[in-house]
Structures are given as C-alpha cells and as structure tokens.
C-alpha cells in the first residue's frame, strides 16, 4: 500500500509542476457556471417564478455551483490506461513489482487532488460574486456530500476503466470515451437538476447509476435527501462500483493475454 501512496505523492508533485495549465483549464470551465447562472436567473426573474420543480433560484444556482466543483473530480481526463496500452508504454507499468491498475488509479487520484486544490480559490471567487444566490449546507449534509462525492469518484473510475480496458481488444478508445463522457453528463445531472427533465426521461435516469455522480451529491448538499435516502444511495453506489470493477477486471485479464506491448 505504501508504494502506491509514494506513487501518489510523486504524481501529485509532478502534476503540480504544470499549475498554469490547470488554472487556465479551471478559468475556462468557470464559463459554464456563469452562463448557466445568467440563463436561470433570467428565466426565474423574467417569469417571476419562485420554484421550478421544487427548486428555487438559490437552489438552482447552488446546484450549478456544486456541480462545477464535482466536474473538477471527473476522472475521465485523468485516466491513462487506454493511452498507455495503445502507445505501448503500459509495458513500463506492467513489468514493475506493483499493480498496473492501482498505479493508474493512484495517478488519477493525484490529478484530481491537484484539480480540487487549485479550484478552491475559484470556488471562493464564485462564492463572492454570486453570494446572494448561493446557500451553504448544514455540517451533516456537508459530510454526507463529501462521502458521496468520494464514492462517486470510484464509481466513475470503475465505469470508465471498462472502456479503457477495451483498448486491449479493440484498439484506441479515446473517441468512444469522450463521447460516453459527454453523454453521461445528461443522465448524471451535470447539465441541470434531473428533476427538470420530462417525467419519462426522469424515470429512466432514476434506474441508471449515473445520477449518483452529480444529481445525488448536489441534492444532498441542498438538503433535499433524508438520511435514509442518503444511506440507500451509498449502498447502491457500492454495488455499482463492485459490479463495474468486476466487469473491468474480466476485460482487463482477458486483454492482458492479448497485449503485445508493441505500441502504435
């Protein structure tokens, strides 16, 4: 375990060396928050609406504030199994006395940590700018929110590792992963609260595991879920994580037998 922790620390320092990159990336992504903020403020004020599907303007803006934070924890841009397998550099990890998968995950976690760390000042900036439209959670909800977000990271990693492992069998998956990442944002609640969807679509998203990535944690932050609903969500998330990791493991093990390490 210690070697992975050391790898995590080294990766963290390595990634932190390119701070300017992350800062520009974060500033560029803040555009989304302010665009959505402007749109929903316009809708609520122009129609004199107090609530849309039980969301007040403050709830909606806070929802986007929270999801802007969770987006920083989206691991898809920080996972490299597909790339290393496709380029052949995966061999370097494979021949060393460690698990190549855990090393990949350690690096992903290190990158996410850097992103969160660098996002905190921008969080503060958003909070100051949109102070009148944001709400703070209770301490209990904040703790529940953080636990859900951490589980969400592993759920995301487990899900996308499946598609990374497909590289062993079908070649480069980068385009497919990008497509999937974009499509998942909608049923995950990354674009707007799922309650805003038409009823049929909303029912479909309730069956899928993706709602745990954005909608559930954001609603926990907003205090819209009871303790029993939160615990039930955690149980379901853990089940999905196990299921996705099992599928990934099966594809990964069979893929290793096919791996030639020649690269492209």
């Amino acid at each position, binding site marked *: 375990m210690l070697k992975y922790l050391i790898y995590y620390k080294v990766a963290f320092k390595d990634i932190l060396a390119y701070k300017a990159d992350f800062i520009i990336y974060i500033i560029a992504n803040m555009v989304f928050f302010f665009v959505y903020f*402007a749109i929903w403020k316009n*809708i609520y004020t122009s129609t004199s*609406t107090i609530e849309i599907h039980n969301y007040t303007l403050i709830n909606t803006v806070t929802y986007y504030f929270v999801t802007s934070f969770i987006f920083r924890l989206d691991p898809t841009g920080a996972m490299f199994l597909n790339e290393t397998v496709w380029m052949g550099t995966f061999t370097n990890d494979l021949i060393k006395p460690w698990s190549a998968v855990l090393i990949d995950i350690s690096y992903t976690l290190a990158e996410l940590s850097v992103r969160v760390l660098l996002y905190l000042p921008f969080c503060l900036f958003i909070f100051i700018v949109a102070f009148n439209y944001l709400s703070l959670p209770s301490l209990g909800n904040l703790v529940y929110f953080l636990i859900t977000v951490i589980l969400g990271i592993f759920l995301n990693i487990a899900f996308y590792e499946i598609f990374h492992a497909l590289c062993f069998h079908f070649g480069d998956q980068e385009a497919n992963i*990008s497509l999937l990442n974009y*499509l998942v944002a*909608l049923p995950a609640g990354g*674009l707007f609260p799922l309650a*805003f969807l038409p009823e049929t679509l909303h029912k479909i998203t309730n069956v899928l595991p993706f709602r745990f990535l954005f909608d559930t944690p954001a609603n926990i932050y907003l205090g819209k879920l009871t303790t029993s609903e939160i615990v039930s969500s955690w149980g379901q998330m853990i089940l999905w994580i196990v299921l996705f990791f099992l599928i990934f493991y099966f594809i990964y093990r069979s893929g290793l037998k096919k791996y030639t390490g020649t690269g492209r």
Partner: protein
Amino acid sequence: MKKYFKITWILFKNAYIRDKKIPGQIFSKTLFNISEIAVTIIFFDVIFSNTRTLAGWNFYQVLFLYAFAKIIISINNGWARGGLNTFASEYIRRGDFDFYLTKPVNPMILVSLSKPRIYQFIAVIFEIGLAVYAIVAGHISIGLTNLIWFLILAILGMILYYFLSVLTVVPAFWFIKIWSLQDLIGRLSQVMRYPAGVFPSFIRVILMSVFPIIAISYLPTNLLFNQVKIEYIIYIVILIIIFGTLTNFIWKLGQRHYSSASS
C-alpha cells in the same frame, strides 16, 4: 492567394487519406457532434418548458442562434483548430514550429491549416439542417435583404472567430507547453449559443468588445430576424480590423520570442 488554396487542397487531401484509415474514430467523433446537438435541444426544451422567451427570443430563434454558432465553430474546427491545438501543445515545445517558420508563406496561416479535420464538416451538414428546421418550424419570415446581409456578416463572423481562436493559443510562444489553451476557445464559445440579453450588461459589454465572441453569432442572427442595422455591419468590420491587426501583431511578437529549443 492562389498558393494558399493549393496548400489547403493538398492538406485536405492528406487529411482525407489519414481519416479514411480510422473510420471507427471518425464515426465516434461525428456521433459526438450529433449527440452534442441532441443534448442541447433537450436542454433548450427544459428551458422553454419554464419560460416562453429567453431574453426576448423564442425557442426557434434560440435554436437557430445555436445552430448558427455551431456552424461557425465547426467550420473553424474543421479548418484551423487541429493545427492551432497542436501548435499550443507540441509545435513550440518540440521545436516543430521551425518547419512552418521556414516556408515562404505566412506561418500563422500555415500552422492553422496544418491539421484539418474533415469529419467536422459532416457536423456542419446537420447544423445547417437544424438551422433550416428552426426557421421553417418557427415560421420565421426572412427578407431577402436580411438574408444577404446575414450571409455577409456570417463570413465576417467566421473570420473574427478565427482571429479569436489564434489569440487564445498565442501564449504558447511564451509558456511553451500549455495543453489547456487547446480548448480555451471551445469553452468560451459556450456563450455564443445564447441571446446577448441573457448576460448582465457588464459581461455583455466585455463579450461584445474586449473579447467579442457573442458579436460573432448574435449580431448576424439579430440582423436576420429584425431590421437591417448598418451599425452592426460597421461594428463587425471594425472588430475584424482591430482583432486582425492585434492577432498579427501578437503572433509576430511571439515569433520573435521563439527560440526553437526542443525538449
């Protein structure tokens, strides 16, 4: 001018040969573009189920604005973004910019043309279809004069968008390796799909003048739906002159800073 057309033709032919070898990836990327349109329509549907207009624009007008913004973005992506992205992430760091610097053509244009993405033009077909659908389904009547001026402003808007794209990657001359610059214009383009009136006046002024990204889509579309305003046309022309000069100036400044050191 003729040699630029010839270079474009050769590079497009190369791109076609390259893309033909990876049909799966091209299919996924095209599907990505179409999915983006579908997801945005769902989002607009959610918005307009709660309000009749957005800053005075109805569903079909906003849909047209979005389609028009996407057409400009996709054409630029197909033509110049691949080259500019590689410039931001690799050409300077690896010293590959030497190749472009030593040719008897404008390096900025050559870099921009260096990696065309033909599949982006497939998306343009869908986006034009969406724009036509918005006009027909929304029963939007358009005068011939409006249409002509709209097309002229659309071309000018495309040129302005190109200059802004270059401006976002030009810091690579000084920072050497900044991959995040690659998609900066893509992120900033989010604002192009909504009516300018949505944004607070201070932000609107910035996005219309300091970094005039909403002027590219909003002014031509506004002119198409409403009365032709000569001030819009003059304003876009002035913006192109200012940003064209500025882009060229900063690019040349960057070139002087370039030391060709590879690593």
